[in-house]
Protein backbone atom coordinates (compact mmCIF):
# COMPACT_ATOMS: atom_id res chain seq x y z
CA UNK A 1 0.00 0.00 0.00
CA UNK A 2 1.29 3.43 -0.94
CA UNK A 3 1.35 6.31 1.54
CA UNK A 4 -0.46 9.31 0.12
CA UNK A 5 0.87 12.79 0.79
CA UNK A 6 -1.37 15.72 0.10
CA UNK A 7 0.07 18.00 -2.53
CA UNK A 8 -0.46 20.95 -0.15
CA UNK A 9 1.51 19.27 2.63
CA UNK A 10 4.26 18.39 0.22
CA UNK A 11 4.60 21.93 -1.10
CA UNK A 12 4.38 23.33 2.41
CA UNK A 13 7.19 21.12 3.74
CA UNK A 14 9.31 21.86 0.68
CA UNK A 15 8.82 25.63 1.05
CA UNK A 16 9.64 25.45 4.75
CA UNK A 17 12.77 23.43 3.97
CA UNK A 18 13.94 26.13 1.55
CA UNK A 19 13.79 28.55 4.48
CA UNK A 20 15.56 26.09 6.78
CA UNK A 21 12.37 25.42 8.75
CA UNK A 22 10.36 22.32 9.59
CA UNK A 23 6.67 21.55 9.78
CA UNK A 24 6.77 20.68 13.49
CA UNK A 25 8.85 23.75 14.35
CA UNK A 26 12.06 21.85 15.08
CA UNK A 27 15.52 23.12 14.23
CA UNK A 28 17.30 21.28 11.44
CA UNK A 29 19.68 19.67 13.93
CA UNK A 30 17.05 18.87 16.54
CA UNK A 31 15.75 15.35 17.10
CA UNK A 32 12.31 14.65 18.52
CA UNK A 33 12.04 14.01 22.26
CA UNK A 34 13.63 10.65 23.08
CA UNK A 35 12.53 8.50 25.97
CA UNK A 36 14.13 5.16 26.74
CA UNK A 37 12.62 2.70 29.17
CA UNK A 38 14.88 -0.28 29.88
CA UNK A 39 13.51 -3.58 31.18
CA UNK A 40 9.97 -3.05 29.90
CA UNK A 41 9.30 -6.76 29.30
CA UNK A 42 9.88 -9.21 32.13
CA UNK A 43 9.70 -12.37 30.05
CA UNK A 44 12.65 -11.24 27.92
CA UNK A 45 16.30 -11.47 28.93
CA UNK A 46 16.60 -7.82 28.04
CA UNK A 47 14.28 -5.19 26.65
CA UNK A 48 13.69 -1.53 26.03
CA UNK A 49 10.84 0.60 24.84
CA UNK A 50 11.75 3.72 22.94
CA UNK A 51 9.69 6.71 21.95
CA UNK A 52 11.24 9.04 19.40
CA UNK A 53 8.52 11.63 19.11
CA UNK A 54 5.46 9.59 18.21
CA UNK A 55 7.49 6.69 16.85
CA UNK A 56 7.10 3.91 19.37
CA UNK A 57 8.94 0.63 19.38
CA UNK A 58 9.99 -2.17 21.59
CA UNK A 59 13.06 -4.37 21.44
CA UNK A 60 13.15 -7.67 23.25
CA UNK A 61 16.33 -9.72 23.61
CA UNK A 62 15.81 -13.44 23.97
CA UNK A 63 18.63 -15.89 24.63
CA UNK A 64 18.37 -19.51 23.61
CA UNK A 65 20.75 -22.42 23.32
CA UNK A 66 21.57 -23.57 19.83
CA UNK A 67 24.24 -24.59 17.35
CA UNK A 68 27.02 -22.21 16.27
CA UNK A 69 27.87 -21.30 12.70
CA UNK A 70 30.23 -23.82 11.11
CA UNK A 71 32.95 -21.21 10.57
CA UNK A 72 32.71 -19.84 14.14
CA UNK A 73 32.28 -22.98 16.27
CA UNK A 74 33.23 -21.22 19.50
CA UNK A 75 31.16 -18.07 19.14
CA UNK A 76 27.62 -17.29 20.08
CA UNK A 77 25.25 -15.99 17.43
CA UNK A 78 23.66 -12.54 17.27
CA UNK A 79 20.51 -12.19 15.17
CA UNK A 80 18.56 -8.99 14.60
CA UNK A 81 15.03 -9.24 13.23
CA UNK A 82 12.56 -6.42 12.63
CA UNK A 83 8.82 -6.79 12.46
CA UNK A 84 6.68 -4.05 11.00
CA UNK A 85 3.42 -5.02 12.69
CA UNK A 86 0.19 -4.00 10.92
CA UNK A 87 -1.00 -2.17 14.01
CA UNK A 88 1.87 0.28 13.64
CA UNK A 89 0.78 1.70 10.29
CA UNK A 90 -2.01 1.17 7.75
CA UNK A 91 0.77 0.63 5.20
CA UNK A 92 2.27 -2.36 7.02
CA UNK A 93 0.87 -5.66 5.84
CA UNK A 94 0.88 -9.14 7.27
CA UNK A 95 3.22 -11.70 5.80
CA UNK A 96 6.90 -12.52 5.67
CA UNK A 97 9.34 -9.62 6.12
CA UNK A 98 9.49 -7.34 3.09
CA UNK A 99 12.54 -5.38 1.93
CA UNK A 100 11.97 -2.38 4.26
CA UNK A 101 11.87 -4.64 7.35
CA UNK A 102 14.94 -6.54 6.19
CA UNK A 103 16.85 -3.34 5.50
CA UNK A 104 15.95 -1.99 8.95
CA UNK A 105 17.10 -5.14 10.71
CA UNK A 106 20.33 -5.28 8.74
CA UNK A 107 21.23 -1.64 9.31
CA UNK A 108 20.62 -1.94 13.07
CA UNK A 109 22.58 -5.21 13.01
CA UNK A 110 25.48 -3.60 11.16
CA UNK A 111 25.90 -0.86 13.78
CA UNK A 112 25.96 -3.37 16.63
CA UNK A 113 28.11 -5.94 14.87
CA UNK A 114 30.77 -3.64 13.42
CA UNK A 115 31.52 -2.19 16.86
CA UNK A 116 31.56 -5.60 18.60
CA UNK A 117 28.99 -4.15 20.97
CA UNK A 118 28.51 -7.67 22.26
CA UNK A 119 31.53 -9.96 22.30
CA UNK A 120 29.93 -13.07 20.80
CA UNK A 121 33.15 -15.06 21.28
CA UNK A 122 32.29 -15.10 24.99
CA UNK A 123 28.88 -16.64 24.34
CA UNK A 124 30.09 -20.14 23.49
CA UNK A 125 29.28 -23.00 25.86
CA UNK A 126 30.51 -26.22 24.22
CA UNK A 127 32.60 -25.43 21.14
CA UNK A 128 30.93 -26.66 17.96
CA UNK A 129 27.93 -27.96 19.87
CA UNK A 130 26.14 -25.50 22.05
CA UNK A 131 26.30 -21.72 22.12
CA UNK A 132 24.03 -18.84 23.10
CA UNK A 133 21.82 -17.49 20.35
CA UNK A 134 21.10 -13.86 21.05
CA UNK A 135 17.92 -12.74 19.31
CA UNK A 136 17.33 -9.01 19.11
CA UNK A 137 13.74 -8.57 17.98
CA UNK A 138 12.61 -5.10 16.94
CA UNK A 139 8.87 -4.78 17.26
CA UNK A 140 7.40 -1.61 15.77
CA UNK A 141 4.34 -0.42 17.67
CA UNK A 142 3.67 2.98 16.11
CA UNK A 143 5.36 4.22 12.96
CA UNK A 144 5.89 7.96 12.79
CA UNK A 145 9.17 7.97 10.87
CA UNK A 146 12.88 7.23 11.38
CA UNK A 147 12.82 3.60 12.44
CA UNK A 148 16.57 3.26 11.80
CA UNK A 149 17.51 5.51 14.71
CA UNK A 150 14.74 4.44 17.08
CA UNK A 151 15.59 0.79 16.34
CA UNK A 152 19.28 1.37 17.05
CA UNK A 153 18.54 3.17 20.36
CA UNK A 154 16.13 0.48 21.54
CA UNK A 155 18.43 -2.39 20.51
CA UNK A 156 21.38 -0.85 22.34
CA UNK A 157 19.31 -0.08 25.44
CA UNK A 158 17.87 -3.61 25.45
CA UNK A 159 21.33 -5.18 25.18
CA UNK A 160 22.56 -3.01 28.06
CA UNK A 161 19.65 -4.36 30.02
CA UNK A 162 20.21 -8.04 29.17
CA UNK A 163 20.94 -10.75 31.71
CA UNK A 164 22.55 -14.01 30.58
CA UNK A 165 20.27 -16.63 32.12
CA UNK A 166 22.97 -19.04 33.28
CA UNK A 167 21.04 -20.18 36.33
CA UNK A 168 17.52 -20.04 34.92
CA UNK A 169 18.12 -21.70 31.56
CA UNK A 170 21.28 -23.74 32.11
CA UNK A 171 20.81 -24.54 35.77
CA UNK A 172 24.42 -23.75 36.45
CA UNK A 173 26.33 -20.68 37.59
CA UNK A 174 24.67 -17.41 38.23
CA UNK A 175 22.63 -15.14 36.01
CA UNK A 176 25.05 -12.48 34.84
CA UNK A 177 24.65 -9.18 33.04
CA UNK A 178 25.58 -9.26 29.36
CA UNK A 179 28.72 -7.25 28.79
CA UNK A 180 28.12 -4.38 26.38
CA UNK A 181 31.48 -3.07 25.22
CA UNK A 182 30.49 -0.20 22.95
CA UNK A 183 27.62 2.17 22.33
CA UNK A 184 27.15 2.68 18.61
CA UNK A 185 24.66 5.49 18.01
CA UNK A 186 22.78 5.98 14.79
CA UNK A 187 21.78 9.41 13.49
CA UNK A 188 19.71 9.65 10.32
CA UNK A 189 19.51 12.73 8.16
CA UNK A 190 17.09 13.44 5.33
CA UNK A 191 17.39 15.82 2.43
CA UNK A 192 14.61 17.87 0.86
CA UNK A 193 15.82 20.08 -1.97
CA UNK A 194 19.13 21.43 -0.71
CA UNK A 195 18.20 21.28 2.96
CA UNK A 196 19.50 18.60 5.30
CA UNK A 197 17.95 17.88 8.68
CA UNK A 198 18.08 15.05 11.18
CA UNK A 199 15.48 12.64 12.56
CA UNK A 200 12.84 12.92 9.81
CA UNK A 201 9.26 12.55 10.97
CA UNK A 202 6.87 10.42 8.91
CA UNK A 203 5.61 13.40 6.90
CA UNK A 204 9.17 14.49 6.13
CA UNK A 205 10.36 10.98 5.40
CA UNK A 206 7.61 10.39 2.84
CA UNK A 207 8.58 13.35 0.70
CA UNK A 208 12.35 13.37 1.34
CA UNK A 209 14.63 13.03 -1.68
CA UNK A 210 17.36 11.10 0.07
CA UNK A 211 18.21 9.67 3.47
CA UNK A 212 21.54 8.92 5.11
CA UNK A 213 22.13 7.00 8.33
CA UNK A 214 25.51 7.28 10.03
CA UNK A 215 26.44 5.20 13.08
CA UNK A 216 29.33 6.47 15.20
CA UNK A 217 31.04 5.00 18.27
CA UNK A 218 32.12 6.71 21.48
CA UNK A 219 35.41 7.81 19.85
CA UNK A 220 33.47 9.48 17.06
CA UNK A 221 34.61 6.91 14.49
CA UNK A 222 32.21 5.97 11.69
CA UNK A 223 31.06 2.36 12.15
CA UNK A 224 28.13 1.92 9.76
CA UNK A 225 26.34 3.88 7.07
CA UNK A 226 23.33 3.43 4.84
CA UNK A 227 22.03 5.75 2.16
CA UNK A 228 18.42 5.34 1.09
CA UNK A 229 15.68 6.74 -1.16
CA UNK A 230 16.12 7.82 -4.74
CA UNK A 231 17.90 11.16 -4.39
CA UNK A 232 21.61 11.85 -4.13
CA UNK A 233 24.15 13.47 -1.81
CA UNK A 234 27.29 15.39 -2.66
CA UNK A 235 30.49 14.43 -0.85
CA UNK A 236 30.29 17.67 1.18
CA UNK A 237 26.76 16.81 2.26
CA UNK A 238 27.84 13.33 3.35
CA UNK A 239 30.67 14.87 5.38
CA UNK A 240 28.17 17.28 6.92
CA UNK A 241 25.94 14.37 7.99
CA UNK A 242 28.96 12.55 9.46
CA UNK A 243 29.81 15.60 11.58
CA UNK A 244 26.17 15.90 12.69
CA UNK A 245 26.07 12.25 13.64
CA UNK A 246 29.21 12.57 15.74
CA UNK A 247 27.83 15.61 17.54
CA UNK A 248 24.28 14.44 18.16
CA UNK A 249 25.37 10.86 18.81
CA UNK A 250 27.19 12.09 21.93
CA UNK A 251 24.03 13.51 23.50
CA UNK A 252 21.97 10.47 22.64
CA UNK A 253 24.60 8.07 23.99
CA UNK A 254 24.29 9.88 27.30
CA UNK A 255 20.49 9.69 27.28
CA UNK A 256 20.57 5.94 26.69
CA UNK A 257 23.26 5.29 29.30
CA UNK A 258 21.33 7.21 31.92
CA UNK A 259 17.95 5.61 31.18
Amino acid at each position, binding site marked *: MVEVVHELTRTHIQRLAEMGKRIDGRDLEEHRPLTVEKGYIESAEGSARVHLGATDLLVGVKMELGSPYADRPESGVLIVVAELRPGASPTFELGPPKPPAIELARVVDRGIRSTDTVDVSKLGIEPGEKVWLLFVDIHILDYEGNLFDAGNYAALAALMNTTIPNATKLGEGKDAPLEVKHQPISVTAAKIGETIFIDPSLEEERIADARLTVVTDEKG*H*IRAMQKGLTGSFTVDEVNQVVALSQKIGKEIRKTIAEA
Partner: protein
Amino acid sequence: MAETPKLIDSKGKRLDGRKANELRPLTIEAGTLKRADGSAYLEWGNNKVMAAVYGPRECHPRHMAHPARALVRVTYNMASFSVGDRKRPGPDRRSTEISKVTSEAFASVVFLEQFPRSSIDVFVEILQADAGTRVAALTAVAVALADAGIPMKSLLAGVAFGKIGGTVVLDLGKDEDNYGEADVPLAIIPRTEEIVLLQMDGDLTAKEFQKGMKMAIAAAKEIYEVQKDALKRRYAVSVEALEAEEGAEEELKEETVEEEA
Protein backbone atom coordinates in the same frame (compact mmCIF):
# COMPACT_ATOMS: atom_id res chain seq x y z
CA MET B 1 39.99 -18.02 13.96
CA ALA B 2 42.73 -17.99 11.36
CA GLU B 3 45.67 -15.66 11.70
CA THR B 4 45.13 -12.31 9.96
CA PRO B 5 47.46 -12.18 6.96
CA LYS B 6 49.57 -9.09 6.41
CA LEU B 7 47.39 -7.23 3.94
CA ILE B 8 49.73 -4.41 3.03
CA ASP B 9 53.53 -4.19 3.25
CA SER B 10 55.73 -1.33 4.37
CA LYS B 11 55.98 -0.04 0.81
CA GLY B 12 52.19 0.15 0.52
CA LYS B 13 51.95 -2.90 -1.74
CA ARG B 14 48.91 -5.13 -1.30
CA LEU B 15 48.59 -8.95 -1.32
CA ASP B 16 47.97 -9.01 -5.08
CA GLY B 17 50.66 -6.40 -5.74
CA ARG B 18 48.28 -3.49 -6.20
CA LYS B 19 48.87 0.04 -4.93
CA ALA B 20 46.39 1.61 -2.50
CA ASN B 21 44.48 3.48 -5.21
CA GLU B 22 44.61 0.78 -7.87
CA LEU B 23 41.53 -1.08 -9.11
CA ARG B 24 41.53 -4.75 -10.03
CA PRO B 25 41.36 -5.39 -13.80
CA LEU B 26 37.90 -4.57 -15.14
CA THR B 27 36.37 -5.60 -18.43
CA ILE B 28 32.79 -5.08 -19.60
CA GLU B 29 30.93 -6.27 -22.63
CA ALA B 30 27.51 -4.91 -23.60
CA GLY B 31 24.71 -6.84 -25.29
CA THR B 32 25.81 -10.33 -24.30
CA LEU B 33 22.34 -11.88 -24.02
CA LYS B 34 19.97 -12.50 -26.89
CA ARG B 35 16.54 -12.52 -25.27
CA ALA B 36 16.88 -9.63 -22.82
CA ASP B 37 16.18 -6.07 -24.00
CA GLY B 38 19.58 -5.05 -22.72
CA SER B 39 22.46 -6.88 -21.11
CA ALA B 40 26.05 -6.71 -19.99
CA TYR B 41 28.75 -9.08 -18.80
CA LEU B 42 31.45 -7.90 -16.47
CA GLU B 43 34.64 -9.30 -15.03
CA TRP B 44 36.26 -7.41 -12.19
CA GLY B 45 39.12 -9.14 -10.45
CA ASN B 46 37.68 -12.63 -10.10
CA ASN B 47 34.08 -11.44 -10.05
CA LYS B 48 31.95 -12.59 -12.97
CA VAL B 49 28.61 -10.84 -13.34
CA MET B 50 25.81 -10.99 -15.91
CA ALA B 51 23.06 -8.37 -15.99
CA ALA B 52 19.81 -8.54 -17.97
CA VAL B 53 17.21 -5.80 -18.46
CA TYR B 54 13.57 -6.11 -19.52
CA GLY B 55 11.39 -3.13 -20.18
CA PRO B 56 9.94 -0.67 -19.91
CA ARG B 57 7.10 -3.20 -19.86
CA GLU B 58 3.73 -3.60 -18.21
CA CYS B 59 4.15 -3.68 -14.44
CA HIS B 60 3.19 -6.87 -12.62
CA PRO B 61 1.69 -7.13 -10.08
CA ARG B 62 -0.54 -4.29 -11.24
CA HIS B 63 -1.00 -2.72 -7.82
CA MET B 64 2.71 -1.93 -7.71
CA ALA B 65 2.48 0.23 -10.82
CA HIS B 66 2.89 3.96 -10.28
CA PRO B 67 0.45 6.17 -12.21
CA ALA B 68 3.11 8.76 -13.04
CA ARG B 69 6.38 6.84 -13.13
CA ALA B 70 8.10 3.65 -14.06
CA LEU B 71 9.18 1.28 -11.33
CA VAL B 72 12.81 0.16 -11.38
CA ARG B 73 13.27 -3.27 -9.83
CA VAL B 74 16.76 -4.69 -9.58
CA THR B 75 17.08 -8.26 -8.38
CA TYR B 76 20.55 -9.22 -7.22
CA ASN B 77 21.17 -12.95 -7.07
CA MET B 78 24.20 -15.03 -6.21
CA ALA B 79 24.57 -18.36 -7.95
CA SER B 80 24.89 -21.24 -5.51
CA PHE B 81 28.32 -22.11 -6.92
CA SER B 82 29.63 -18.53 -6.90
CA VAL B 83 31.22 -18.81 -3.46
CA GLY B 84 33.40 -21.27 -1.52
CA ASP B 85 30.67 -22.95 0.52
CA ARG B 86 27.57 -23.56 -1.59
CA LYS B 87 25.06 -20.75 -1.14
CA ARG B 88 21.50 -21.85 -0.68
CA PRO B 89 19.68 -20.73 -3.82
CA GLY B 90 17.08 -18.01 -3.61
CA PRO B 91 16.80 -14.66 -1.91
CA ASP B 92 18.27 -14.14 1.56
CA ARG B 93 18.34 -11.03 3.74
CA ARG B 94 21.63 -9.81 2.28
CA SER B 95 20.54 -10.02 -1.35
CA THR B 96 17.14 -8.50 -0.52
CA GLU B 97 18.87 -5.47 0.96
CA ILE B 98 21.29 -5.15 -1.94
CA SER B 99 18.41 -5.37 -4.42
CA LYS B 100 16.57 -2.62 -2.56
CA VAL B 101 19.42 -0.10 -2.36
CA THR B 102 20.50 -0.83 -5.94
CA SER B 103 16.95 -0.24 -7.21
CA GLU B 104 16.90 3.08 -5.35
CA ALA B 105 20.25 4.07 -6.82
CA PHE B 106 19.03 3.52 -10.39
CA ALA B 107 15.70 5.23 -9.71
CA SER B 108 17.76 8.39 -9.23
CA VAL B 109 19.20 8.37 -12.77
CA VAL B 110 16.51 6.75 -14.97
CA PHE B 111 13.94 9.17 -16.44
CA LEU B 112 11.08 7.35 -14.76
CA GLU B 113 8.40 9.87 -15.65
CA GLN B 114 8.72 8.91 -19.32
CA PHE B 115 7.16 5.50 -18.65
CA PRO B 116 4.14 5.79 -16.35
CA ARG B 117 2.59 2.57 -15.02
CA SER B 118 5.42 0.43 -16.37
CA SER B 119 8.33 -1.43 -14.86
CA ILE B 120 11.97 -1.76 -15.76
CA ASP B 121 13.13 -5.12 -14.44
CA VAL B 122 16.79 -5.88 -13.99
CA PHE B 123 18.21 -9.26 -13.05
CA VAL B 124 21.84 -9.50 -11.98
CA GLU B 125 23.48 -12.87 -11.58
CA ILE B 126 26.71 -13.15 -9.63
CA LEU B 127 28.31 -16.15 -11.32
CA GLN B 128 31.59 -15.96 -9.45
CA ALA B 129 32.11 -13.86 -6.33
CA ASP B 130 35.36 -12.24 -5.24
CA ALA B 131 34.42 -9.34 -2.92
CA GLY B 132 32.78 -6.18 -4.16
CA THR B 133 29.99 -8.03 -5.93
CA ARG B 134 27.37 -5.35 -5.31
CA VAL B 135 29.44 -2.58 -6.91
CA ALA B 136 30.36 -4.95 -9.74
CA ALA B 137 26.63 -5.60 -10.19
CA LEU B 138 25.85 -1.87 -10.20
CA THR B 139 28.52 -1.18 -12.80
CA ALA B 140 27.19 -3.96 -15.03
CA VAL B 141 23.54 -2.91 -14.61
CA ALA B 142 24.30 0.65 -15.73
CA VAL B 143 25.72 -0.69 -19.00
CA ALA B 144 22.85 -3.16 -19.44
CA LEU B 145 20.27 -0.37 -18.97
CA ALA B 146 22.03 1.76 -21.56
CA ASP B 147 22.17 -1.25 -23.87
CA ALA B 148 18.39 -1.59 -23.46
CA GLY B 149 18.02 2.03 -24.56
CA ILE B 150 16.57 3.16 -21.23
CA PRO B 151 16.94 6.95 -21.01
CA MET B 152 19.11 7.95 -18.05
CA LYS B 153 20.63 11.22 -16.97
CA SER B 154 23.93 9.39 -16.59
CA LEU B 155 25.54 6.02 -16.19
CA LEU B 156 26.34 4.99 -12.63
CA ALA B 157 29.72 3.66 -11.57
CA GLY B 158 29.93 1.28 -8.64
CA VAL B 159 33.13 1.30 -6.61
CA ALA B 160 34.19 0.47 -3.08
CA PHE B 161 36.92 1.67 -0.78
CA GLY B 162 37.96 0.32 2.58
CA LYS B 163 40.72 0.11 5.13
CA ILE B 164 43.34 -2.62 5.47
CA GLY B 165 46.19 -2.64 7.97
CA GLY B 166 45.34 0.97 8.81
CA THR B 167 45.57 2.17 5.19
CA VAL B 168 42.67 3.46 3.10
CA VAL B 169 42.55 1.53 -0.18
CA LEU B 170 40.32 1.13 -3.20
CA ASP B 171 38.42 -1.95 -4.32
CA LEU B 172 39.00 -4.60 -1.65
CA GLY B 173 39.82 -8.14 -2.75
CA LYS B 174 38.46 -11.18 -0.94
CA ASP B 175 41.09 -11.48 1.81
CA GLU B 176 41.13 -7.73 2.24
CA ASP B 177 37.37 -7.81 2.69
CA ASN B 178 37.52 -10.68 5.19
CA TYR B 179 40.33 -9.34 7.32
CA GLY B 180 40.16 -5.60 6.62
CA GLU B 181 38.84 -2.96 8.98
CA ALA B 182 36.20 -1.26 6.84
CA ASP B 183 34.32 -1.53 3.57
CA VAL B 184 32.38 1.27 1.87
CA PRO B 185 30.46 0.33 -1.29
CA LEU B 186 29.33 3.32 -3.35
CA ALA B 187 27.44 4.21 -6.49
CA ILE B 188 28.53 7.51 -7.98
CA ILE B 189 27.27 9.60 -10.89
CA PRO B 190 30.70 10.14 -12.48
CA ARG B 191 29.99 13.48 -14.17
CA THR B 192 28.37 15.25 -11.22
CA GLU B 193 30.14 13.29 -8.46
CA GLU B 194 26.79 12.75 -6.71
CA ILE B 195 26.44 9.74 -4.45
CA VAL B 196 23.36 7.60 -4.97
CA LEU B 197 24.35 4.51 -3.00
CA LEU B 198 26.42 4.45 0.15
CA GLN B 199 26.79 1.71 2.71
CA MET B 200 29.50 1.11 5.23
CA ASP B 201 30.57 -1.08 8.05
CA GLY B 202 33.79 -1.24 9.97
CA ASP B 203 35.81 1.48 11.63
CA LEU B 204 36.84 4.74 9.96
CA THR B 205 37.64 8.21 11.22
CA ALA B 206 36.00 11.14 9.44
CA LYS B 207 39.40 11.96 7.89
CA GLU B 208 39.88 8.44 6.54
CA PHE B 209 36.39 8.56 5.14
CA GLN B 210 37.09 11.81 3.30
CA LYS B 211 40.32 10.40 1.89
CA GLY B 212 38.52 7.28 0.68
CA MET B 213 35.77 9.31 -0.95
CA LYS B 214 38.34 11.26 -2.97
CA MET B 215 39.88 8.00 -4.20
CA ALA B 216 36.47 6.55 -4.98
CA ILE B 217 35.40 9.53 -7.07
CA ALA B 218 38.59 9.40 -9.12
CA ALA B 219 38.03 5.64 -9.58
CA ALA B 220 34.40 6.17 -10.62
CA LYS B 221 35.63 8.28 -13.52
CA GLU B 222 38.01 5.51 -14.57
CA ILE B 223 35.21 2.94 -14.42
CA TYR B 224 32.94 5.29 -16.38
CA GLU B 225 35.44 5.22 -19.27
CA VAL B 226 35.39 1.39 -19.29
CA GLN B 227 31.58 1.45 -19.33
CA LYS B 228 31.44 3.93 -22.20
CA ASP B 229 34.03 1.93 -24.10
CA ALA B 230 31.89 -1.22 -23.74
CA LEU B 231 28.88 0.60 -25.18
CA LYS B 232 30.89 2.10 -28.01
CA ARG B 233 32.27 -1.31 -28.96
CA ARG B 234 28.75 -2.72 -28.93
CA TYR B 235 27.32 -0.09 -31.23
CA ALA B 236 30.31 0.89 -33.32
CA VAL B 237 29.79 0.15 -37.01
CA SER B 238 32.56 0.28 -39.58
CA VAL B 239 32.00 2.59 -42.54
CA GLU B 240 32.66 -0.29 -44.98
CA ALA B 241 30.04 -2.49 -43.37
CA LEU B 242 27.55 0.35 -43.45
CA GLU B 243 28.20 1.04 -47.13
CA ALA B 244 27.95 -2.64 -47.99
CA GLU B 245 24.60 -2.79 -46.21
CA GLU B 246 23.32 0.28 -48.03
CA GLY B 247 24.49 -1.20 -51.32
CA ALA B 248 22.53 -4.38 -50.63
CA GLU B 249 19.41 -2.38 -49.82
CA GLU B 250 19.70 -0.42 -53.05
CA GLU B 251 20.00 -3.62 -55.05
CA LEU B 252 16.97 -5.06 -53.28
CA LYS B 253 14.94 -1.94 -54.15
CA GLU B 254 15.94 -2.09 -57.78
CA GLU B 255 14.96 -5.75 -57.96
CA THR B 256 11.52 -5.01 -56.50
CA VAL B 257 10.97 -2.18 -58.95
CA GLU B 258 11.88 -4.49 -61.80
CA GLU B 259 9.55 -7.19 -60.56
CA GLU B 260 6.66 -4.76 -60.24
CA ALA B 261 7.30 -3.46 -63.73
